[in-house]
C-alpha cells in the first residue's frame, strides 16, 4: 500500500508541473508589458522596476517560467498588490474557509446522494424512486447561485432562521455554533447539484450491480434483503461511485465560487473573482495553481480509497 501511494504521488508530479505550465501560458497571453499588466493601477515606476527584478519579467518566456516556478517551490507566490500582502498568506487563509464550505458540501452530497441513489434503485419505478428522480432532476437543473438567493429569501429574510451571509457574526461570534449557523445555507445550496449527480450515478450503478450473478448468490444463501442491498450491492457499486465522487469534489470546489459570492463567504473563489476584477494577476495565478494542486492531491486520495475498497486493483 505504501509503495502504491508513493507511486501515485510520483505520478502527480508531472501533472502538477503541467498545471503550472498551463497557468503560466494563459497568463502569458495578457497583452502588453507584463509588469504593467500585473500591477495595473499600481504601476508606479518603482513597482514596475521591482517586479521586473523579482519575476525576471524582462527575460525570455522560458526563463520567466522557471523563475516563477522556483519562487513557488520556495513558497513564494509573489505579492498581491491590491491587498498588499504575500499571495500565499491570503491564499492559505481563504482556502481554509473554502475547505470548510466545500468539505461540508462534499460530505453532504456523498451521504445524501448515495442514500437517495440506493433507495431509488431498490425501489425502482416505485413511488420513492419517482419522487427522488424528480427532486434530483430539479436539483441538477437549478443554478446553485439562484438556489442560494432563493434560500436567503426564504430562510433568512422570511423565516429568519439563518443569517443572510458571512461566515461569522460580526459581534460576539466566532465559535463553532456560530460557524455552523452561518454554514448551513451555503453548504446546502452548494451540495444540491452534486447530490443530484451522485444520486443519479449511484442509482444506475446499483441497478447495474443488482443484476449481477453474485447478488443472486447472496439471495440464494438466504442473506436478508437489507444486507443484499446495503452490503453486497452497495459495496460493489461503490467501485464505480468513488471515481465520480472525485469528479464531484472538483464540481463542489468550482461551485463554491458562486456560493461564496452569494453568501459573502470569505473563501478563495470570492478572492479570485475580486482579484480578476481588480486585475491582481499574481493573486489569480497563485490561487489557481494552489487550488488545482490541492485538487490533484485529493484525487490521489480518491484513488487510494478505491484501491482499499477493491482488492482487484494491483497496489
Amino acid at each position: 500500500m505504501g509503495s502504491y501511494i508513493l507511486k501515485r504521488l510520483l505520478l502527480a508530479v508531472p501533472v502538477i508541473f503541467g498545471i503550472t505550465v498551463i497557468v503560466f501560458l494563459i497568463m502569458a497571453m495578457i497583452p502588453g508589458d507584463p509588469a504593467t499588466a500585473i500591477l495595473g493601477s499600481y504601476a508606479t515606476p518603482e513597482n514596475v522596476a521591482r517586479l521586473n527584478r523579482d519575476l525576471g519579467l524582462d527575460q525570455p518566456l522560458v526563463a520567466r517560467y522557471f523563475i516563477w516556478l522556483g519562487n513557488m517551490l520556495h513558497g513564494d507566490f509573489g505579492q498581491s498588490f491590491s491587498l498588499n500582502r504575500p499571495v500565499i498568506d491570503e491564499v492559505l487563509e481563504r482556502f481554509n474557509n473554502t475547505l470548510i464550505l466545500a468539505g461540508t458540501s462534499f460530505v453532504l452530497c456523498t451521504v445524501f446522494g448515495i442514500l437517495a441513489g440506493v433507495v431509488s434503485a431498490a425501489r425502482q419505478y416505485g413511488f420513492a424512486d419517482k419522487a427522488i428522480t424528480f427532486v434530483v432532476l430539479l436539483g441538477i437543473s437549478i443554478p446553485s447561485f439562484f438556489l442560494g438567493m432563493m434560500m436567503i429569501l426564504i430562510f433568512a429574510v422570511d423565516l429568519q432562521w439563518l443569517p443572510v451571509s458571512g461566515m461569522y457574526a460580526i459581534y460576539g461570534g466566532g465559535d463553532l455554533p456560530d460557524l455552523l449557523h452561518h454554514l448551513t445555507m451555503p453548504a446546502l445550496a452548494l451540495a444540491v447539484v452534486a447530490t443530484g449527480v451522485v444520486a443519479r450515478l449511484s442509482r444506475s450503478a446499483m441497478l447495474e450491480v443488482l443484476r449481477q450473478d453474485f447478488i443472486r448468490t447472496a439471495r440464494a444463501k438466504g442473506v436478508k434483503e437489507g444486507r443484499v442491498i446495503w452490503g453486497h450491492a452497495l459495496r460493489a457499486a461503490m467501485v464505480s461511485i468513488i471515481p465520480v465522487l472525485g469528479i464531484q469534489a472538483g464540481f463542489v470546489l468550482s461551485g463554491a465560487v458562486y456560493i461564496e459570492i452569494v453568501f459573502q463567504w470569505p473563501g478563495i473563489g470570492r478572492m479570485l473573482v475580486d482579484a480578476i476584477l481588480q486585475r491582481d494577476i499574481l493573486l489569480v495565478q497563485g490561487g489557481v495553481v494552489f487550488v488545482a494542486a490541492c485538487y490533484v492531491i485529493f484525487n490521489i486520495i480518491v484513488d487510494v480509497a478505491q484501491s482499499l475498497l477493491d482488492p482487484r486493483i494491483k497496489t
Partner: protein
Amino acid sequence: MSAFFKLLARNRLALGGLIVMGLVVALALITPLLPLVDPDATNTANRFLPPFSDGALLGTDALGRDLLSRLLWGTRLSLAVGFAAALFAAVAGAAVGIIAGFYGGRTDNIIMRAVDMLMAFPYILLALAIVAALGPGLVNALIAVSVVNIPFFARNIRGITVGLANKEFVDAAKLAGMSNARIITSEILPNVVPVIVIAMSTTIGWMILETAGLSFLGLGSQPPQADLGSMLGEARSALITNPHTSVIPGIMILIIVMSINLLGDGVRDALDPRLKSGALSRPMAATRVDRKHTPAPEARTEGILSLENLRTEFHVKDRIYKAVSGVSLSVKPGECLGVIGESGSGKSVTALSIMGLVASPPGVITGGAARLEGRDMIGARYGDLRTLRGRRVAYIFQDPLATLHPLYKVGDQLVEAISSHRAISKSEGRAKAIELLKSVRIPNAEERVDSYPHEMSGGMRQRVGIAMALANDPDVIIADEPTTALDVTVQAQILSLLDDLRRERGLAIVFITHDFGVVAQLCDRVAVMYAGRIVEEGPTMEILRAPAHPYTARLIACVPELGAGKRKLEAIPGLPPSVDALPAGCAFADRCLKAQPSCKEGEILLEGTGSRAVRCLYPELSLSKETA
C-alpha cells in the same frame, strides 16, 4: 432514425422538455419582432415596479428598465452564447480528437497528455484564469467556457476515431491512395458527426449555465448589455427589497436548463438499447408469483422436493416467453436427479423458480407448486422463503467468478451463509469456514479462507461455491451447471466430490446440465427438457441404454464415447422453437426425422408406466411393451 423519434416521443418527460425548449427558442428568435420597449431604456421614475404594473408586465429593475423586454433579450443572448460556446468546444474538441485518434502514436500521446492536464483542473478555475488573462467580457467568457469543455469532446471523439481508424473502409481508402486529409473529411468525419451532435446536445445546457454563471460573477456580459446571468447578478443587490428582479431571470434559467436536461435524458434513453429490452430493471428479492389458481394442498409426495406443473414465464413488453410450461419433478433424499436439455430449454429457470430466484422483472411464476416436504414455496411470504434459502435448499451456480462477490473474502462469504440463518461468533465462523473449505478438499484451507475470489482458480472457486451450499447442511442442493465452466479433469473431481457428499450426508441433488456424460456419472434418474417441458423421464441407465424420445436419442448420439470406435457424431439440425411462439403439438416435431402430421396437433401427454415416461406419439421404444 424515425424509430429514434418514436422512442423519444414515447418518453413524455422528454417530449415536454422538447416542447418547452422549442417555445423558449422560438420566443428568443422572434424577440426582435415583438413590440417590446428598448431593454436598455432607463427610467428612474419607474424604479422597481412590481410585476403586472401598467406598461410593464413583469415590472422594472433598479434603473426602471422593462423586465419583460430585458428577460427576452437576455434569454436570446444567453441561448446564443451557450450555443456558440458548445459549437466552438465541439468543433475544436472534435478536431483535436480526430487528429489524436487518426494519427495515433506520439501525436496521440502528446495531445492526450495535454488534455489530461486540462482535465486535472477544477473546471471553473481554468475558466477564471482565462477570463483573468483576457479580461472580463461576454466574448472572453464564451472563450473560457468553450476551452474548458474542449477536453470532454476531444476525449469522446478520439475514442470513436480510434475505432474507425482501424476499420476496413479506412484501410481501403488508404490503399486507394487517398491523402490523410481526404480520408478524415470523407471517411471519418461523416461517422463522427452524429456523436458530436449528441455530445453537444447533452452539454449545451451546461454551457448555458456556465456562461450565465460567469456573467453572474460580473465576468461575462458587461452593462448595459445583459444576459440572464448578469440580470441575476445585478439584481442580487436588491434581492431582499425587490425579489422579483432576481426571481424572474432565475426561473428562466431553471426552465431552460431543466427542459434541456429532460430532453437530454430522453435522447440518452432512446439511444440505449438496454432500456428497450428492459434489461436495466433490477431483479426483486423474490420472483413475482401470479397464479390463476392456487394448487390444492396436495397429498404428500414421496420426494423431499417435488415440483408440480410449474409454469414460469418472462413478460417482456407485450411478449410472453413461456420458459417453463408445466414441469413436474420430484427428488428423494440421497437421490440425484439430472435435468438435461439444450440452452434455452428452461432447465435453469425451472431450478431457479423453486426458491423464487428467477430475475423478476421480467420473470413471473404463473402456475404450479414447488413443495419442500409438502409445503408449497411458490407464493410463500418472502420472510419464510428467505429462511429456507440456503438452509434447507441450497444452490450451486455455474461460473463461480461471477457468482461469488468479487470484493469479499471467500471465508467471509462462507460465514455469511451461516450467519444469515443463525448467530455465529467470529471465531466459530472462521473455524467453520475452514472446516467447510477442507470438506470440499481445498488445500491450505487456513490460508485460502482469507483469499478473494479473483485470487483462486476456476476449480477452486467452484469448490468454494459448493462449500457455501453445504454451509447449513441443507436437505436439497440444486446444482445449476456447476461444472460447465471447468476443464475436464477438474470437472471429474467436482463430480466425485458431489457424489461423495450425497452419500455421506443423504443429500437430494437436482443436477442441471446439458451434458449426458455428466449425467451418466452422477445421476440416478434423469429428466430431459425441451422447450420448457419434460419430454422424457426415467432411470439414467435405462434411458442411456434405450432412449424413448427421438430427441433424447439424438442428444445421446451427440456424446462422444472413448474407445467406442468410429461413430458419426451427429448434431441435431435446426434450432429449438422460440418459447414466445410455441407450435401446437410436439415442439421438437420440426427437427424430428420421425415426425408425422399428427405430431403437430393438440396436446401430447407425458405418458409411461413404472419409472419411465415419454412425451411422444411415436417413441423409439414403446414403454408399455417394455414393462409388460
